[in-house]
């Protein structure tokens, strides 16, 4: 099957709009993706036909809603290659998934003398929770630096692991700023060589939407995803975990549904994954995420990757060749995903973003929630164009046009 972007685009209502008479060119999917009709339809099924709470009702609306909520869990497990739905905990977003692990694993088990290893390439979601836990518990936070070639510094990582104190590794799969695809197997093997007991969390927010991911093959303990970046709705994400890890963990948020029994004397926690889903869950959102997995699997994740790989090569080459443009990130399309950060000489990213908006082009400008990386790049902000299934080469010209216009407009 060829990747027919024109047909795909029709499924995305927001993309049907014009801005000042120009086609809307959405190049900000790394921040949040568009939502296809199929996902909106799935949520409508819930709101219009099965609107009831789940996990507790004995009437048919609730039974069917419960069945579909649990089916969404199984669907997501299948989508990411998790061995069992019991290892899938629905959260609000990947940020909460990571915090769950910070509270119920790291803060409960690690202390002075232990170290958590993360990297200078992380989104704040995979940095601040460890920083905060370190502050509170006396755990040491170690940070793998980034090399000039926009990859993690493997030698430095080895040195940080050498004393065997690293008991927890928190690593991004794909950088939201540089697009770098980290060689997870190699990096995890390094950590396990230094300490076979090391527990590994991977932030997959930028990977699962764009690459075929198989968490079982990666053999990680925890893997976080977020729905709104993978064609799904806002308000839902998930922690994918080895079920035995969840078994070992006390709950994080507590309340209804996550208990078996409650009295003044004793509370009996429910089994995972329910132990970690306190209160009424994101029901409509789970229906939507189910449909998003369907849409992506129908396109085929290998095909999605192939499409984006081709597109990112075209975009990166064009930007590298453009006057006054500097790209931050690997140029080899095999090593990168579709988030492309760049700077334009003499134009502040903010001004560039505003200019591009007037061309109907939506890009992100700022620190992209990756301040440690910005410090390393030596900039306050970058511009970032990012690609997804509904983007195509025809999105490149308006981007270049807007960049050139900004360069001329702001030339001092």
């Amino acid at each position: 099957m060829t990747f027919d972007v024109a047909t795909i685009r029709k499924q995305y209502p927001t993309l049907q709009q014009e801005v000042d008479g120009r086609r809307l060119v959405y190049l900000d999917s790394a921040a949040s993706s568009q939502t296809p009709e199929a996902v909106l339809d799935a949520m409508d099924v819930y709101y219009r036909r099965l609107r009831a709470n789940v996990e507790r009702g004995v009437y048919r609306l609730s039974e069917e809603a419960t069945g579909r909520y649990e089916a969404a869990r199984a669907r997501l497990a299948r989508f990411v290659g998790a061995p069992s739905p019991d290892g899938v905990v629905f959260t609000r977003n990947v940020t909460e998934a990571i915090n769950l692990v910070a509270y119920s694993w790291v803060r409960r088990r690690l202390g002075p003398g232990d170290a958590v290893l993360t990297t200078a390439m992380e989104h704040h979601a995979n940095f601040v929770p460890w920083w905060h836990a370190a502050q509170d518990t006396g755990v040491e936070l170690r940070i793998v630096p980034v090399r000039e070639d926009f990859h993690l510094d493997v030698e430095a990582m080895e040195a940080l692991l050498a004393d065997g104190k690293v008991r927890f590794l928190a690593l991004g799969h794909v950088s939201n700023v540089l697009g770098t695809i980290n060689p997870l197997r190699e990096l995890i093997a390094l950590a396990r060589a230094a300490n076979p007991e090391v527990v590994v969390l991977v932030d997959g927010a930028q990977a699962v939407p764009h690459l075929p991911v198989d968490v079982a093959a990666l053999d990680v303990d925890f893997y976080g995803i977020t729905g709104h970046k993978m064609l799904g709705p806002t308000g839902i994400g998930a922690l994918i975990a080895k079920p035995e890890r969840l078994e070992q963990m006390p709950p994080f948020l507590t309340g209804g549904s996550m208990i078996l029994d409650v009295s003044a004397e004793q509370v009996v926690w429910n089994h995972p994954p329910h132990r970690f889903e306190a209160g009424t869950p994101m029901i409509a959102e789970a229906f939507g995420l189910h449909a998003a997995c369907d849409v992506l699997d129908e396109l085929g994740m290998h095909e999605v990757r192939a499409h984006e790989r081709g597109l990112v090569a075209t975009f990166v080459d064009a930007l590298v060749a453009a006057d006054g443009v500097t790209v931050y990130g690997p140029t080899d399309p095999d090593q990168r995903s579709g988030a492309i950060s760049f700077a334009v000489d003499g134009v502040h990213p903010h001004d560039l973003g505003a200019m591009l908006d007037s061309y109907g082009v939506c890009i992100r400008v700022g620190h992209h929630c990756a301040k440690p990386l910005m410090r390393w790049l030596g900039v306050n902000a970058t511009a970032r164009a990012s690609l997804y299934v509904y983007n195509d080469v025809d999105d490149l010209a308006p981007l270049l046009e807007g960049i050139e216009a900004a360069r001329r407009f702001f030339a001092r």
Partner: protein
Amino acid sequence: MDDLYQEIILDHYRRPKNRAPQLDGEDVHVHHSNPLCGDELDLRLRVRDGRIDGLVFDGEGCSISQASASAMTDAGLDRDLDDALALAEDFRQLMHGTPATRPDDLRDGVVFEGVARFPVRVKCALLGWMAVRDAIETYLAGASDHAVTYDD
């Protein structure tokens, strides 16, 4: 409604078999509960020569849970322990939509087939059968007491 509440089920509910708070010479007592529905079940087992020689239940719960426990005791009594374990597994499969391989041995247990279509009630129908399995395993492990709480 009619799929769920067959007349035989209601009979077991109204006139349960082997329902008693005590069992003379009991070897094992297990307590199983399902907090979602508030089903509670006490099951008592007496074993002689590797055979179920006494089996009584007591408890509180919905008609399905109580009737199924009643039917279970009826089908389980006088069986070898291994055989009873196998029969419990047959019933579990039935609740997950697989036709029973030993419908005759399940006796009235077969009429619970229709419950499989009501996921929330499957746990109720399973309660007695999971309890007898647990009681036998507890006995084989050399213990005399066990309590289990099910999630929803």
